């Protein structure tokens, strides 16, 4: 079942915590004893969505596994800002290897744990997560990822999608959205920015592997995100969660807008929030206040070329069409169900 929001308790489950809810109905993040898996002192930019998303997700996974968790990390901002030698921000067993092999490393860890348990060397049921950016996931690490899916290895893979290779200076990835400007897309011309009709949406590809669980989430809806991480941990086999994480640097947005933009991505329909089991969609987070895509695009400098002296109406309309398609495809507009 999808996350069921609590209504009418002043803020219900919209806020991180809620003193009016029973303790067992509250979020992991509201807890004074949360793990803080990614601790203070990391070097992420002000307002980094990836740093926030990683703490949300790994804290929830720690909670779900009774702290029996190992994390493998791909190269990318998350790795670079958290572990400049010899410091680490991680308060979980954590390993970094390469840009493209996090899924394979995690598979190896899972296999090692299985063997240790078979040999009686440990009784602990230690679970494994792999995590990386969109570049590390949808591009260079994609082969390892698909292999992990297809073998149904017992790993939860989490992709933090900020729509580009942010760590190396905002280059385009196969997850960069259409029309968004990066360092490696056309800066000028008839249609500047990332071309329409390219790229891929890895959640759909993960579903095509018919793995036990696939979900998308944003940092704007913590309760939904935590629900999905915890639910993923109830399955054995390959699982995939794709989290949209705004990047103030790469998106050209104010650092305080990170959550607002995540919310707008979901509310406009540009980023569908849903979950699927064994290849079938089982639920989607409904839009609460339908909004035109402009609301999401306008605050971001990567779309500034759409709102110049001569607004690029045609491009905006094409983006709106993508949002409308998502709304249809994932049944995002169903006020009653929300």
């Amino acid at each position, binding site marked *: 079942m999808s996350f069921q929001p609590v209504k009418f308790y002043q803020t219900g489950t919209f*806020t991180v915590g809620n003193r009016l809810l029973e303790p067992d109905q509250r979020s992991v*993040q509201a807890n004074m004893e949360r793990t*803080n898996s990614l601790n*203070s002192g990391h070097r992420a930019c*002000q307002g980094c*969505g990836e740093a926030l998303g990683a703490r949300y997700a790994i804290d929830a996974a720690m909670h779900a596994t009774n702290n029996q968790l190992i994390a493998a990390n791909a190269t990318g901002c998350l790795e670079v800002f958290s572990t400049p030698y010899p*410091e680490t921000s991680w308060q979980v067993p954590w390993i970094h290897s390469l840009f493209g092999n996090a899924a394979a490393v995690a598979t190896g860890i899972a296999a090692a744990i299985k063997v240790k348990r078979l040999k009686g060397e440990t009784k602990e049921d230690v679970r494994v997560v792999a995590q990386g950016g969109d570049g590390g996931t949808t591009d260079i690490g994609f082969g390892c990822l698909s292999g992990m899916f297809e073998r149904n290895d017992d790993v939860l893979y989490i992709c933090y999608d900020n729509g580009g290779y942010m760590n190396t200076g905002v280059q385009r990835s196969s997850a960069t959205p259409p029309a968004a400007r990066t360092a490696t897309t056309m800066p000028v011309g008839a249609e500047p920015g990332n071309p329409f009709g390219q790229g891929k949406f890895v959640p759909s590809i993960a579903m095509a592997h018919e793995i036990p669980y696939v979900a998308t989430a944003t940092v704007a809806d913590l309760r939904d995100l935590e629900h999905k991480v915890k639910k993923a941990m109830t399955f054995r086999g390959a699982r995939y969660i794709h989290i949209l994480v705004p990047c103030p640097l790469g998106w050209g947005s104010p650092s305080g807008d990170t*959550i607002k933009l995540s919310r707008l991505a979901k509310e406009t329909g540009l980023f569908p929030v849903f979950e699927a089991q064994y290849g079938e969609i089982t639920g989607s987070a409904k839009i609460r206040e339908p909004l035109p895509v402009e609301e999401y695009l306008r605050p971001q400098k990567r779309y500034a070329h759409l709102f110049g002296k001569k607004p690029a109406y045609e491009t905006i309309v094409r983006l709106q069409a993508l949002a409308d398609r998502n709304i249809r495809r994932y049944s995002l507009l169903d006020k009653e169900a929300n």
Partner: protein
Amino acid sequence: MNKPFAITLDPGSSLANHTGSWRTERPVYVDRLPPCNNQCPAGEDIQGWLFHAESGNYEAAWRHLTTHNPFPAIMGRVCYHTCEGACNRGKLDAAVGINSVERFLGDEAIKQKWQFDRPAAESGKHVLVIGAGPSGMSAAYHLRRLGHQVTVVEAGPLVGGMMRYGIPKYRLPREVLDAEMQRIVNMGVRVVLDTKIENVLDTMKEGSYDAAFLAVGAHIGKRTAISDGEGPRVFDAISVLRGLENGEKIPLGRRIAVYGGGNTAIDVARTVRRLGAEPIIIYRRTQDKMPAHAFEIEEALQEGVTIKCLSTIKQTDPKGIVIEKVQADSRGSLHPTGEYETLEVDSVVLALGQNVDLGALKGVPDIELNDGVVKVDANMMTGHAGLFAGGDMVPTDRNVTVAVGHGKKAARNIDAWLRGTTYAAPEKHQIATFERLNTWYYSDAPKTVRPMLDVIRRQSTFDEVQGGLDETNALFEARRCLSCGNCFECDNCYGVCPDNAVIKLGPGKRFQFNYDYCKGCGLCVAECPCGAINMVPENI
């Protein structure tokens, strides 16, 4: 230590890296003044008491409420609740039903027999309060809390002032009034009834009082010369209401003309309607100009009161009254038309406002008057040192809540005066405007409406017209509050900080910033639902 190949340093924690040095702006927790609190004439901390009510702690809510106003059950019935007009939630769907939750708390307190604490220590000072209306009793309550001995002297046979002799039972049941008054007496306030003060200074000297608060109200009904002794008898509204309250038989007859358009006119009409009469309100302007509240006019019409607008009473005549039609022009100015008609009535009740009886102040030096009411300074003190005044007898809006607020303010100033200091009110916080809120986080929740007595019973009995909320819907209503400008511990800042730079201090203790790590991104400020965090520039 045996280190792996090429490793020379022990692993360290990133806590060594104080990212707070990146900051150019810092978030700070603030308390802003919710618009409801700002509006309340009695200065209640509405958001503050709703906070307790939200968690179902009604006693804590009641105790918090009554630090400012000892009469929630009365307020919940007769206060014109301008707070709700200012409530930010009104811009979202509908204002929080502050008044109905207040009434619920007041009724709950009566049911549970909650009492006020007596003061911890006696000051040794003795204050005289003249008049046991809302203003006098509010002052008595606050003075007693501050440890002073208080004697209230009241001319009438019972306490309550206009709340008893003006406001009819069907709006304020007397058990409710009595319960909230008795609670103040139980604190050790002495009340002397049936004693009219003829001269304040004499009484003060005789009783060795250290200060006095005057709250004699405005009880002299204004009259206009319309009768030359022939035809229907002419009464004034205040005397009629007082007489009926005292159980007197007043020869009003069946058809009664009520002259005036204010709340008093409506109350008289609705009262006599309940006694079987046919009241007709005569008012010189149009109905939308009537000073009475729209909801009271509506309720009166439902009960069968007739309203005749654009009419003045010229004079009585043997059969009834002569009425002149009035015309209003486009700018609203009134013009007599010279067209007359005769209306058959048995009596006329004048509801044209009230004057203050200043008898008790006769001969007191330095008292300044202003249009028949007594001038006071910002500390509620009259021109005569040690003599304070409030409520209907000073220049003000005349209603119970203002009177209660005056009582509180006067008590604080009397207390300071008795100590030889002046009372300094704490500085007002900035207003928590709607723009400061992040309303995304609030659940959609329509307002709860209070039940109304059916119209048949309203026409024949003095049963209370408006019902109260029960526990479930009072709780629901309290939880509609947005907690404007004041942290309500939603944990958003604690959650949304990417740097774990918010320290949660535990239930009831709120949060603290850890400026060693806060980078100043502003996410907490943006995502705080109630606008309780401010961003201020760093000194760099």
